[in-house]
């Protein structure tokens, strides 16, 4: 088990390094990075000052070292617009994004898992076809369009739900639905295929041969085994949700990190953009790592095999 953890940790660290390197390189190698790293409307003198301050004439690897050392100290630059350290800004918005992502995740699992199980148990019959349609729609309807249409319907026409902001529980319903929609379809698909695989396994066959009631076969033997990949994916998807909620948060003016990213773009506030992408990516790598470990804990086989 220890060897497994160490190996995974190594991969995670390598990925984090590659991530920071990618972001660093893209900024430094395209055009004049100083323009990005300076407020819009800065003068030539400001540009020169930034050049010197960031050492943009030094060799790349020196710059990267500087970049990394500031990162590790928690210094991700200051926002031009808000004039506060970006890290603080990010952390203040993060709880909102997590709340939204959690709500969306709950929705997607509540819809996705049962429909996936039903589709698998009633494979190739009506439920399965309905499920396949649902999966297709989930992939084809952009989340932000779903959000916009919902606003049209529930806020403008029916007046039931508020169209923006984050004041109450009512405020989170539509954004959670819009965000969770795609993932509900993804979870349904995975549950279905995982369930189908498990239903075809030898131990389910033996469970039936033992004469166990079908409800027990599916509810006990098939369910737990089928759920493992789904929950794994769900864990990773939670963090992905935080990242891709950009558009949904923008549509609903939900004050999370997605909205922060949008503001960064709209106000040409590059430090915000860079930091959001960096932290977002790092979160995913970290969560991937923990989910891998968790997977090994839940499924006893993996512990001993790796």
């Amino acid at each position: 088990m220890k060897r497994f953890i160490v190996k995974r940790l190594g991969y995670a660290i390598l990925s984090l390094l590659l991530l920071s390197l990618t972001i660093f390189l893209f900024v430094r190698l395209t055009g004049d990075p100083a323009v990005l790293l300076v407020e819009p409307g800065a003068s030539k003198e400001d540009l020169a000052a930034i050049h010197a301050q960031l050492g943009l004439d030094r060799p790349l690897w020196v710059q990267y070292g500087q970049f990394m050392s500031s990162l590790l100290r928690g210094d991700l630059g200051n926002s031009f617009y808000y004039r506060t350290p970006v890290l603080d800004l990010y952390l203040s918005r993060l709880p909102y994004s997590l709340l939204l992502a959690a709500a969306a995740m709950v929705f997607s699992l509540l819809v996705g898992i049962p429909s996936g199980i039903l589709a698998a148990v009633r494979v190739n019959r009506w439920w399965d076809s309905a499920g396949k349609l649902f999966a297709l729609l989930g992939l084809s309807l952009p989340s932000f369009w779903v959000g916009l249409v919902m606003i049209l319907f529930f806020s403008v026409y029916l007046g039931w739900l508020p169209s923006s902001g984050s004041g109450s529980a009512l405020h989170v319903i539509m954004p959670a639905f819009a965000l969770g929609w795609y993932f509900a379809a993804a979870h349904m698909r995975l549950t279905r295929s995982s369930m189908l695989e498990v239903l075809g396994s030898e131990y389910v066959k033996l469970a039936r041969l033992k004469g166990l009631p079908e409800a027990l076969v599916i509810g006990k033997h098939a369910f737990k085994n089928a759920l493992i990949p789904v929950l794994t994916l769900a864990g990773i998807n939670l963090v992905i949700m935080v990242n891709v909620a950009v558009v949904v948060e923008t549509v609903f003016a939900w004050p999370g990190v997605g909205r922060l990213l949008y503001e960064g773009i709209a106000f040409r506030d590059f430090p915000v953009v860079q930091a959001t992408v960096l932290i977002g990516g790092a979160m995913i790598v970290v969560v991937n790592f923990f989910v891998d470990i968790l997977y090994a804990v839940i499924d006893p086989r993996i512990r001993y095999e790796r």
Partner: protein
Amino acid sequence: MSALLEVSGLCTQYVSARGTRVTRAVDDVSFTLEAGRTLGIVGESGSGKTTLALTLMRLLPPAARIAGGSVRFGGEELLTKPDGEMRAIRGKRLAMILQDPMASLNPLFTVGDQIAETLRAHEATPRRAAWTRARELLAAVNIAAPARRVGEYPHQLSGGMRQRVVGAIAISCGPQLLIADEPTTSLDVTIQAQYLKLLGDIQRARGLAMIFITHNLGIVARMCDQVAVMYAGRLVETGPVRSIFNEPAHPYTRALIESIPKFGDAAERLTAIEGQPPDPAALPPGCAFHPRCPYVIDRCRAEAPPESHLSPQHRTRCWVAAPAAVGAARG
């Protein structure tokens, strides 16, 4: 006294998704088995042995259907039983062991749990009692330290032990008939003999009837009272084990027996049977074995031979072995 299991004219078919291709996996199979006796079903892979076993348990995949025949178990007809009653029989009076013990056991539940759940489902044994019984059953299949093993997961046991657990599950509710589908094929050679001995002991102690499905004639010679040789879905020869081994009638049976390497044989080459087993979806006309048969005559290519008796217990399907066989030819 009627036999424990009477199968007659059993036919199972697989139908392709669009209903166009029909594969006869089990074709006109008949045999009987008395209580406490062992029947060996021998054949190559693809001969339909496993389908036959699943048909008896009425647990076929959706693509398969039982096309005809009858299965009488303890005097009751199984093929027409409603699902609920069949479920009550499965695992309780009629049990089955599968080939790969690692795959047969659910990796997420303890060994004890998987034994206990059978007891709780069929005999409504309360939880604690079921666990105690599970421990006793582990001891009955010769697993050391059963109290510890009962709480362990399948991957913590060796292959041989896992197969014993599967055996414990099978006998837990005191079945009258145990079907073992290649139970030793996944085991190490050194463990196989131990396992077979265990099965034999259990059988004698509990008066179990057994159906032993295998491709290994050595096991058949050791464990079985009767043998049924299966080829392309049909039983080409059935009879007491002595008759089959001493006077094999069907060319396929003969070839199988000849291909067993015998210690101290003067000849150094192994005799294999020429050719390949036929594709079940595209069987040759007439006798399915004729393309590979060294004794083939014209009649074999045209008509499929019906079953005929060489002696009261010994039957075969072969124009060469039983030329006077009477019966409507089936293509």
